[in-house]
């Protein structure tokens, strides 16, 4: 099949490359752009390990074909820290002990970011719902929920300080 020009913004940077239109966004990110922080756990939309943000919305990159993401603003885990400084969600994941094997972590952090970007004061139930498409086999989710709560409080404080 004829490649098409995949043009998008990935982690704030413009990207323009020829891509087979049948290719999944996940492969474009991991293989073509070398952004391997986005993980593949199932390839069929069941685990959330491949979660990235498409114009701020969390999507499973394994279910999105490259053409569907063209023109979008894409955020992967590599784009969450700003200039080498960890994002408060990343810090909170570390501090709260929400990371064990770390395979679900990039997807979890992006799902959490999408939540906090639109609901800065979520309830525990809202947090659990926001990450309900992201499986974690290690943590029992307890510290993940705690980390998101902690990040929300920190972001609110930062907000207040500005």
């Amino acid at each position: 099949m004829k490649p098409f020009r995949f043009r998008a913004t990935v982690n704030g940077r413009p990207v323009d490359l020829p891509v087979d239109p049948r290719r999944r966004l996940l492969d474009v990110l991991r293989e073509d752009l070398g952004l391997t922080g986005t993980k593949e756990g199932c390839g069929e939309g069941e685990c959330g390990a491949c979660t990235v943000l498409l114009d701020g919305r969390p999507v499973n990159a394994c279910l999105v074909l490259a053409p569907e993401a063209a023109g979008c603003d894409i955020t992967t885990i590599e784009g969450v820290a700003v200039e080498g400084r960890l994002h408060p969600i990343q810090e909170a994941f570390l501090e709260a002990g929400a990371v064990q094997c770390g395979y679900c972590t990039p997807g979890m952090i992006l799902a959490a970011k999408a939540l906090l970007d639109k609901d800065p004061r979520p309830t525990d139930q809202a947090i659990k719902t926001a990450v309900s498409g992201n499986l974690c086999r290690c943590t029992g989710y307890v510290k993940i929920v705690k980390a998101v709560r902690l990040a929300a409080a920190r972001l609110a404080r930062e907000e207040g300080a500005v």
Partner: protein
Amino acid sequence: MTGQADGKMPAVSSVIGRSCPRVDGADKVTGSALFAADRRMEGMLYARVLRSTVPHAVLRRIDAEAARAVPGVAAVYTAADIPGENRVGIIVKDEPVLVDDRIRRVGDPLALVVAGNEQALAAAMSEIEVFYEELPAVFSPEEAMAGGAPAIHGQGNIQSVTRIVRGDVDSALKEARAVISRRYTTQMVEHAYLEPEAGLAAVVDGLVTIWVSTQNPHYDRREVARVLGIGQNRVRVVQSPTGGGFGGKLDISVQCLLGLAAWKTGRPVRMVYSREESMAASPKRHPCVIDYTSACDGDGRLLAVKVKIVGDTGAYASYGPATLKRAAVHATGPYEVPNVFIESYCVYTNNPTAGAMRGFGVPQVAFAHESQMDLLAGALGLDPFTIRLRNCFRPGGVTATGQRLLHSVGIKETIDRARAKAEELGMLEGKR
């Protein structure tokens, strides 16, 4: 630095007992941790393994000529290409890297395809022809242990038996105030770690180097060296960040196949299981049938247990013998029982292989012994906490294997603390 300012020697406790953040945490929250599937090398090839679709068969021939002719295919390997020993296994070397004589389960590896891209790989897989003669198969330990059952590994299908005998169970049963006998069954379970099996191998400075998701890199090295017929010092296994294991990454998965492919082609080779392949081909938790009899006196003190555990280890031993032995040793639960007769059987079938999974047979027996404790408590009108406190090990207690427990016997404290927490939370309200 801690402890310096006040002129006191920094106590060990300034670091032991402290919730330090994970040393690899920053890499994992930024996405920079390189898991095995994240690695790539110049000139890298891709590998995939063709697996059997039948549970039991004599393998006659594999015709890979057409597959080898697919453009982009670098090689197709079968058992004949293995330079060293074609058997692996942590306890018993009973599992082929690539089947040479007999297929023993659905999912047994038959041929390894190596190609320059995924499309060629897929095309070649469908071109391989496998000729076999199906054999009668057994799908439960009961059938497998019956007389005349097809022998999966040459001799009988009972892989191992563990027996623990202490005191005189039969007379204890006669004296008991309450005797409870039940059969418990537990299911096969999947580890379901989020990261499917993956690895990358290359010959680097003459060393077969394998980056792999694993729970035991040194075991992997032993097996790869034996299978390739080279010295252990010619093999380097580097554990990649591993996306969960829970016992399921203790066995050989991609290691030997990757070693073979890199060694033979001289090129870097990567192999990543799909979720489906991971779940279909990896070892599982042993399904068990447990016949459990417990007896106690009028105060609820255990007098005897008689337990028979049968575990289905599937086509290969894997960690099965260790799992069933551990299940036997732990069958009493954390309780002092003067008279025991415990037997456990690890049995081959043509089911998926069961190996190590978090708990190694103990979650299975815990379901049984804890149900029994509640049944005994019910029979005597005792509270579930009371009967456990009455029987749990104390320092100086003796286990079913005759071991005297001297130190660090915290079971009583865990019962007290769990109960106190449950009370504090109001969990016990309206209950006792």
